[in-house]
């Protein structure tokens, strides 16, 4: 059997399951009408779901774009600090985002396609429900005529076949939404875990590394300055030893850092939190 005939049988078999319930064909007409109204509501809800899903993808794409821009900044920062390893890491992640964005784009297109189709389906269905409403009353009024009974049978078959087709169209739209949700969930997880850059910045490993690098560079610089201050000329062998020990303890103390605001400010534009973090770590 050809594909076209097989498909017809399938669609009509699904249709019969929905409608072959009433004993009296006139009741079947009313039942068909009710089912159509129900389906029209379902399609409208389906349309709203598709629109929501599309919106979510658009928002995620925006988030990913921001994350990508941030990674690019970080790569530049890293290069400025001679940290090519960090720059590579940031750019690698950025290209990972590009892949994600591509996937989102495909899904967005598919959803837009589903939306377009469901909109057409809704319009068609609306016109048919309206036409069926008037026709079923005419058919019911002339029910006793044998001809009308045949027509009722045909109309009901036709209606239930359309409903089965609409049901399939909605199922396709829902499948696309489900696929999109699985992917969106995965992107959310990536964003949350910091595998991609978390925009809150709290769990961003590249930024942490950059901050640490700039801070520890600064600490080294300050240490060097202090050493220079404490041991100005040629060091005296024994007398300076005690002073040297005292000096070594002091950089650990946070207050000393604040005592030297001019030196810190001139060497790094970094924020104060960075200094504290790095001081504690070193």
């Amino acid at each position, binding site marked *: 059997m*050809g*594909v076209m005939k097989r498909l017809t049988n399938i669609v009509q078999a699904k249709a019969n399951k929905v409608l072959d319930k009433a004993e009296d064909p006139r009741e079947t007409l009313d039942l068909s009408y009710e089912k159509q109204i129900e389906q029209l509501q379902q399609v409208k809800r389906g349309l709203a779901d598709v629109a929501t899903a599309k919106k979510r993808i658009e928002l995620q794409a925006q988030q990913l774009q921001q994350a990508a821009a941030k990674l690019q900044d970080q790569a530049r920062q890293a290069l400025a600090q001679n940290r090519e390893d960090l720059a590579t890491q940031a750019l690698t992640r950025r290209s990972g985002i590009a892949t994600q964005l591509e996937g989102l784009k495909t899904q967005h297109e598919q959803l837009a396609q589903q939306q377009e189709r469901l909109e057409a389906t809704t319009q*068609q269905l609306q*016109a048919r429900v309206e036409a*069926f409403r008037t026709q079923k009353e005419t058919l019911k009024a002339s029910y006793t005529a044998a001809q009308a009974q045949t027509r009722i049978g045909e109309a009901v078959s*036709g209606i239930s076949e359309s409903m089965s087709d609409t049901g399939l169209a909605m199922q396709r739209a829902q499948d696309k939404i489900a696929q999109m949700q699985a992917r969106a969930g995965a992107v959310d997880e990536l964003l949350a875990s910091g595998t991609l850059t978390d925009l809150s910045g709290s769990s961003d490993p590249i930024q942490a590394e950059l901050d640490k690098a700039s801070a520890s560079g600064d600490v080294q610089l300050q240490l060097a300055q202090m050493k220079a201050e404490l041991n100005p000329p040629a060091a005296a062998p024994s007398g300076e030893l005690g002073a040297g020990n005292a000096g070594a303890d002091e950089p650990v103390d946070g207050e000393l850092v604040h005592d030297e605001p001019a030196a810190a400010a001139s060497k790094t534009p970094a924020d104060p939190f960075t200094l504290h973090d790095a001081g504690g770590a070193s």
Partner: protein
Amino acid sequence: MIVRILGEGQYELQDSQVAAMEELDKKLVAALDSNDETSFRDALTRLVQSVRSEGKPVPPDRFVPSGLTLPHETASLAELRELLASEDVGES
């Protein structure tokens, strides 16, 4: 004969026009058997387009069952296979 394009609607065609579609239907069957997406796409596109161009759309106030049914133009081989797989369930 009435032909339905799934997700689109029904068209009325002359029997002679339907006969011309049978060759393409056979190609669909062959593509399904050999899992040939390219020839499937080609046959489906030509079928759908010939129904659209040669058939007369069934108006919304005419309620009739179809004699033949086509998948939507963008349906994939996998989608069609899945649909056909529901055959046994549907007819029980």
